[in-house]
Every structure is written in C-alpha cells, then in structure tokens.
C-alpha cells in the first residue's frame, strides 16, 4: 500500500484549517520554518486552544492578587512587603516515557517559572498518580519519578515539602506527574516577561541549545498514547522529545538571575520552557507590543549542523531570556561570569512594523546573522495570542446515570472493617524521605501531614513573622462520578487541609489533567470541572491565580479519570509556635468538628471512597458541595490553630482533617504516629467509618467542655466521639485493632508494594 507523504503542517501537529488561519495572518503561504513556529506555539500545550474558553469562567480577582493567570506564576501580596509566587504544571507524558528525566525537568521548569517573577523558589510539591503496583512497569515508574524529583530538587537547592501519591488503574499507561512551586520576593523586585525599549538586547542565559526536547509540546504533550500499554511501546519513537535536566546549571542560573534582578539590570525576564526560544521571544515581544530580531547564529549550540527550526523550538533545559539595555550588558556579563552562567545577545528589540492599514505590529524575525537573511517573519502576537480557540463538542457520558445508580452505599456488604482499614493505610514516608524538605530553615510542618507549613522567610526577604501553607489535593474517584461537585469538594478539601495548620486560604492554582479533548465526554468533564471549581472558589472567596491544562492523557483510546489537581496557598499571620499536628495525648477527649453527616441525600456516602474503590465499586452518588455548611467550620478550626501558632495556650492538642479513608483512617493515622490508641463509643455503621466528604475534623482536647463551648459559640456543630488512650483503636464496636498492627501495616505498605522489603 502506498500513500502520499503527509503534508508538513500535519506532521507538525497543525490542522488544515489552522494552516488556512496562518495563511490569513501572513497573507501568503508560510515557509517551513514559520510553519514549525506555529506548530509549537499553536499546540494544545502552549495555546490552551481547547480549554481557554472554559478557563475564563474561573474567578481570578482579589485585592491581594498582584499577578493573576498568564505570567510565569501568579503572585499574591502576603503582607510585610513580601509577595508569594505560585505555579503548578504537569510533566505527564515525558515522565511516562523517561521517568527520571521527565520528573526532574518538571521540577526545573516550574522553578524557572517562579524565579522568572523575581521570586526565590522556597518550596516544591509533587502530586503523583500511578497505576497499581502489582505491575512491574508501574513500580519502575514510581522509583524513577521519585528519584528524578529527589535528584533534581535536592541538588538545585529547593525543599520539596509534600505532595500526593495516588494509585489507580486508570493511570497505568498514563501516569501523572504534577509539580507545584512556591517562591517569595520583596514586592519591589517583581519582574514580568515583557520586552520593551527599542534597541534593547534579548540575552539568552544558561545552557547551550541542543536537539533535546524538540517538539516536546506538540509531539509529546499534545497527543495521546496510541497503544494499550501507554508509553511502553513507543519509548523509542518519542524518547528524543524528552528533555534532559542539569540541576547544577539551574542552581547557578537561579543565583545569577536573582542577583541580576536585585541589581536592577534587567528590563524583563522570561524562562524558556515548552516551545523554547520561539515561545520566550514571541511572548515577551507580544506583551511589550514590540518587534524582535533573533539571530540564530548567536545562539550557543550543543551540536553541529542544527537547523533553524531546531534552534528555535528546542526545549533544552536551564535557559532564560533577559531583556537588557545595551549600557547594562557588561554588568550583566560580569554577574553571569561570577556564577559561570553563559550570557549571549541573541535578539534585538525593534520597532513594531507599520502595516498598510496603519496598524503597528511587532514582528518576530528569525535571521541568519543580525544583518543577514530573514528566515522567518511573523507577527509575534499571532504566535503568542492568536491560536484558534475551540469550543469542542461536549457530551455527558451516556452511562453516567447507570454508574451513579450502582451505589456501594446501598448494597456493598460490610465485611471485615478492621481488615479493610489496614488495607487502606499507606505511609508515604518512603517517598518524602528522599526529598530535602528542610532547606532554608522554614519548614514547620513538612511532608506527610494535612498541609505543609513554612515560615515566610528567605535570603533577601524583609523580616516577617508570618507563615505560608500549601496543600495539593485531587480526587479522581469523586470527579469520575461528578466532575462538578467532585472538583468543588476537592477545593473544599484543600481549604480544610490548610485549616489544620492554622492557615487562611488566599489563592488557588490548578492543574487540570484530563483525557483526549476530541472526545466529547472529556470536554464535558473539563467544562463541568471548571464550573465546580468556579463555584467553590466563588463561595470560598478564592481567586484562581494560575493553572495548567494537561490534555490527551489517554492510551489505547482510554482516557484517565478526570484529575483536576488543586493547589491551595494560605497564610498564617503569626507563626511563632508549631500547630498541634496529630500528636494527641493519653486522656484527651476526642471531638468531631463540623457537620457529622454529608450534604445531600445520603448521610454517609461511600461512592468514590477508597473503601469502595478497593472493592471494585466505582459508581454511586457523591456528597453535594454546600459551602454554607463548610465556611464556619473552616473558619473556626483555622482560628483555633492559628491562635496556637501565634503562641497562645490552648486545650487543643491535635487536629486532623477527615479525608481519604474516612474517619477510620484519620483516627488510625493519628494513633499510628503517636502510638496511643483511642476509644470511640458509637458510630453509625461502616458508612461513618469510611465515607469521604470534606468539612469534618478530628480534634483532641485536654478540656472538652471549654472546647465545645467555643465551637458552639462559633455556630459550629461538634460531636463528642470518645477518649484517647490505650493500645487499641476501638471504633464503636465496628472494629478494634492494636495500634502496633496499624503502625506496622501503614509503615510497610508502600515499600512492600514496591517489593523493596
């Protein structure tokens, strides 16, 4: 069978109609180099062309928001002259193919987003999603991803303070590796990725440019895996599109860039990430409304004989583009020399071109020498901003009603509750022990708890007693059943986690991991999920200040469950003492804070719970999202813990959010870390043990009367559960397990599943 060769634009990932759009912009046929530029910039990964019309529905405003979505990172005013920058991204497909480098470069990329704002990166978090560990390839992926994060993050000198670890068969062929980074800056050092000032230089900082990562955004990130086995069968074909990281180069780049910004030597700065040099040059030029001439011969190259399209689209890591006045260039060079960072003038900011209709358009010109041949000439904004926006067809899955009707709350047999509990417990310490979680002396609550809590301090920052808290949350089991309420509940879960460390939620970032947007059911999930996030953020007064969309998470035609990951940033106004954590004491009274029963038709829904999922039950009806039941509880818990952080004496000795694994898991986790048991008198059956819905907290107190009085005063429902003490976790006659058995099972679960012990 013979066929005509595929037209170039399709090989570059552009559709026929997109080619027509490009012809319209240029009023001529694009040349092959120009097509390559559009191919990467108009890819799903760079242009958000399938999701942007939906993302507009997210609230992004707030008096404390200094920078909203669209820059390298979102920035809020944290007080005391300090801004906090936060960003989350996915590195899913590279990690599926080459787990160490995929995860490592995910860390590197997100850090550049943060320090490109002038912020010193202070913390990283990694939500990870893998298939089940009975599969050897999944075990290989887990070890590779974790060692990639460890190898890069530790060496680059940014603490990794937490994350999430989720196992589900839907990720078997398509694991998810998301990375969140937080940095802080004196607010007067805020930098933006804008080119301005005709005659200024565009200076490429950092690594030389090689052939790694070419087409990363289009070949790799904007298409699904065709085979049933996901990445396993296409390793060799796509592996060259995976970038390779060098944390030592990045560490020096961070120090050099922060010194350049401190000294006021740069006009604008942007990282080189997806789509490499073309992305950084066209975006900075488009934002500044200027033109830019780029000389490809001025770009330091790692390999001989690189083509212009390779130089422009390479995703070689550890590179930044700084806009610098000619007068400052020698000083910039001196700082870079000190840090052994390469600095080369690769572009000139030029006047916009006056078109025949009188409008002025900043042109991106790719040249062979600054005075040499023009190889490509296109409006910078057409690459950066003018990709077509698609309102792709959406359709509610036809089997959704049947899935919701198959509800484990109604008919799943009770079984052995103690055995179920032990099966649900996993201590992720094997993962986070491999991460430096303490650098910069800020980590008050590290990985493995409800949320991470850090002092708001760092080199070059004004003095402050404040702290900041971070949580990442997701629940694909909920979102598969109801992407709207599932996403809203996920946001609520994040706020609950922050409350446990005394932090008031201030901003949200999101990483929307979904399947193939050309499947109408996936677009419906995405749209519903955005609506749910918008509803929750509106109700809880939270701006969404940044995000990332990862589509085409599919293999062999099967999409992953919808996996919106929500990153929550909170502030503690006075952090001079640690929050209580999980360390309850013998003799404490145990109180459930918040509405005991879920909003909605069923008091203790098991739909979407880990308990039901382990039994192969993936259907049912979720709890509803009802902000009116949550806000006063969140505020009360936050205030109780914040007062302890501020150094006040309190009867509260331990606080834990009820989440994955339900009330039973929450109590078992606390018993496991303290090695002290608990006796709960009466619970409403196995539903109350294992149901998962946010808005409930377990609080241990040395003075139940005083605590309950405060809760009632705040209008928050409380239930006295029982007493802390003994060597067993004894839950209302439903289960009774030795604490030592819980600790042993929980501690060894992950290493056992990875076959390390």
């Amino acid at each position, binding site marked *: 069978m013979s066929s005509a060769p595929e037209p170039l634009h399709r090989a570059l990932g552009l559709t026929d109609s997109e080619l027509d759009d490009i012809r319209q912009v240029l009023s001529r046929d694009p040349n092959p180099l120009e097509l390559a530029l559009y191919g990467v910039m108009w890819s799903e990964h760079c242009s958000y062309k399938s999701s942007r019309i939906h993302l507009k529905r997210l609230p992004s405003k707030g008096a404390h928001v200094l920078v909203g979505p669209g820059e390298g990172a979102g920035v809020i005013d944290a007080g005391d002259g300090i801004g906090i920058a936060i960003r989350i991204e996915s590195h899913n497909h590279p990690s599926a193919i080459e787990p160490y480098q995929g995860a490592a470069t995910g860390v590197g990329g997100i850090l550049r987003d943060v320090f490109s704002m002038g912020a010193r990166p202070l913390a990283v978090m990694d939500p990870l999603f893998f298939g089940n560990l009975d599969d050897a390839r999944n075990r290989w992926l887990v070890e590779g991803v974790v*060692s990639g994060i*460890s*190898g890069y993050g*530790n*060496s*680059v*000198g940014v603490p990794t303070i937490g994350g999430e670890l989720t196992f589900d068969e839907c990720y078997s062929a398509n694991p998810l590796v998301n990375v969140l980074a937080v940095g802080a800056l004196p607010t007067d050092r805020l930098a933006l990725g804008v080119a301005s000032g005709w005659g200024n230089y565009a200076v490429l900082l950092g690594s030389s440019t090689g052939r790694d990562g070419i087409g990363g955004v289009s070949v790799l990130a904007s298409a699904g895996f065709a085979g049933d086995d996901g990445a396993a069968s296409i390793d060799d074909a796509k592996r060259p599109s995976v970038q390779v990281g*060098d*944390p*030592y180069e990045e*560490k*020096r780049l961070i*120090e050099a860039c922060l010194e350049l910004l401190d000294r006021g030597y740069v006009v604008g700065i942007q990282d080189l990430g997806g789509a490499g040099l073309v992305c950084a040059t066209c975006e900075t030029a488009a934002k500044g409304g200027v033109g830019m001439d780029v000389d490809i011969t001025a770009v330091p190259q790692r390999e001989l004989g690189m083509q212009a399209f390779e130089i422009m689209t390479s995703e070689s890591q550890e590179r930044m583009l700084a806009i610098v006045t000619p007068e400052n260039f020698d000083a910039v060079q001196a700082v870079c020399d*000190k*840090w*052994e960072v390469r600095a080369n003038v690769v572009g000139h900011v030029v006047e916009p071109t006056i078109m025949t209709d009188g409008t002025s358009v900043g042109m991106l010109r790719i040249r062979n020498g600054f005075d040499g041949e023009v190889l490509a000439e296109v409006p910078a904004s057409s690459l950066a901003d003018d990709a077509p926006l698609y309102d792709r067809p959406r359709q509610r899955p036809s089997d959704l009603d049947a899935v919701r009707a198959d509800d484990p709350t109604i008919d799943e047999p009770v079984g052995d509750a103690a055995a179920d509990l032990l099966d649900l417990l996993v201590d992720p310490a094997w993962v*986070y*022990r*491999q*991460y*430096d*979680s*303490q*650098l*910069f*002396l*800020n*980590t*008050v609550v590290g990985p493995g708890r409800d949320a991470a809590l850090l*002092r708001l301090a*760092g*080199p070059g920052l004004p003095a402050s007693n404040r702290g900041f808290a971070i949580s990442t949350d997701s629940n694909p089991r909920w979102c598969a059943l109801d992407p709207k309420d599932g996403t809203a509940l996920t946001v609520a879960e994040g706020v609950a986690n922050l409350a446990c460390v005394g932090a008031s939620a201030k901003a949200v970032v999101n990483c929307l991991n979904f399947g193939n947007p050309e499947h109408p059911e996936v677009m419906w999930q995405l749209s519903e999920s955005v609506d749910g996030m918008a509803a929750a953020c509106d109700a809880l007064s939270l701006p969404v200040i940044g995000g990332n969309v990862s589509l085409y998470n599919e293999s062999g035609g099967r999409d992953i469950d919808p996996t919106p990951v929500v990153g929550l940033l909170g502030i503690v106004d006075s*952090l*001079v*003492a*640690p929050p209580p954590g999980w360390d309850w004491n013998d003799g404490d009274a145990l109180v459930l804070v918040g509405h005991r029963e879920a909003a909605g038709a069923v008091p203790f829904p098991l739909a979407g719970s880990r308990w039901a999922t382990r039994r192969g039950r993936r259907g049912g009806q979720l709890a509803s999202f009802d902000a009116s039941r949550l806000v006063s509880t969140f505020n009360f818990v936050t205030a109780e813990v914040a007062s302890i952080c501020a150094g006040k004496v309190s009867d509260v000795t331990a606080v834990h959010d009820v989440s994955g694994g339900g009330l039973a898991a929450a109590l078992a986790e606390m018993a496991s870390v303290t090695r002290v048991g608990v006796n709960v008198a009466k619970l409403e059956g196995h539903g109350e043990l294992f149901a998962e819905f946010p808005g409930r907290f377990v609080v241990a107190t040395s003075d139940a009367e005083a605590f309950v009085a405060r809760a009632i005063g705040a209008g928050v429902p409380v239930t006295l559960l029982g007493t802390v003490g003994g060597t067993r976790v004894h839950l209302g006659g439903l289960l009774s397990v030795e604490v030592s058995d819980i600790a042993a099972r929980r501690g060894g679960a992950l290493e056992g599943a990875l076959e390390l012990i």
Partner: protein
Amino acid sequence: MARIGVVVFPGSNCEYDAAAAVEQLGGSAELIFHSATSLGDLDGVILPGGFAHGDYLRPGALARFSPVMDAVAAFAAAGGPVLGICNGFQVLTEAGLLPGALQKNRGLTFLCQPTTLIVSSTRSVLTRAATLGAELVVPINHFSGAYTCDDETYASLVADDQIVLRYRDNPNGSRDDIAGVANEAGNVVGLMPHPERAMSSLLGSADGRVLLEGFVGVGAAAH
C-alpha cells in the same frame, strides 16, 4: 563577636542557613565565594551543605580544587576552627583535611530525616560545649553519608579520640555508626547531620545549638 566565614561554592545551598545559625548565636557571618584566595580576618570557617560544583565526579572531588581551599587548608594548619557540614564534610575528606571518605547510603536512596546523635568526644571545636554521651536530635539530608575508612585509620581515630558524634540508630551504613570526626588536633571537624537545621523547637529540634555554640564560642574566645 566571633567572625565566621561561610564558604560558597557554586552549587552550595545551605550557606544562608549556616550563616543564620551563626548570627542567631551572636556571631557574625560572612559569605566567602569559592574564588577567594584569602579568608581575611576570621575566627572560624564553615563549609556548608549543598552540592558543590554539582557533586560532579563525586561529592567534594571538584570543590577541593576551588581556589579558596588553599586558604582553608592554611587556616586549619594554623589551628583555626574549621567545620564541614554534610557536603562540607565530604569536601574536607576529599581535600585531605579529615581522614576517611563518605560513600553512598546503604539503602542507595537519599535520606532526609531526623536522627539521634550521641556525643562521643568533647575534644573538638564542635563538641566542646556538649556533654559526653548526650543524645541530640539532629536531621540528616544526604545521599552519600556512609562514613568509611581503612582499618589503620579507624584504629587511629579511636586511639586519638577523633570520633566526635555517632548515630544511635545507624541510618546509612556508616562504619561504627560514625556521624562526625575531627582531625587529631580537634580544630577541624566534619559531620553529615545538619546542626544548623536543629536550632529551634519551631522547626522540630533545638539540639544543634549546643554544637554550634561550641564552634562559634571557640571563635569568640580566639578573637
């Protein structure tokens, strides 16, 4: 006030933390870039943790050739207090200022976790203020922290009371649970745990203070 220099190699990352700890104890800290050829008027020098020169080849193998190391060696030879923490310890062994070497951890993974140290000698600039046999909770944060040395070196370490800190529960496979050693004179000390990370109960432990107090204090006494 003791003046403590903190050496910054490209790739160091605990320099600010070490400096903060020194200042918390009433000393003054001065960051010294690795290209410096003299130390100036200092009472002590800290080689901080991190990944000097990316740990390329092996930890400390390139850093020993940084220009500043000649000045550090001269300072040590003159009896000046020198402390290597984590990567700084690795640099000191590579530079021959301390005996032995650091290998990859027994479990072949990076480890960031609290450890309990036992003060095994107070005859060093780091442990002089501590109590012999005292248990101190101080975190470790390393991939290559398993201390090793040949039998002859080990015998002399024991004979000359150069093993200053041991792990109570050996996390990494170090020979004889060794967490820190001193040179024969006791003025050069290296340890894998991070005492600067154990300066405040807010961050989990303040047990590192007694170690760094000794080090900063010896500097102050010298001044």
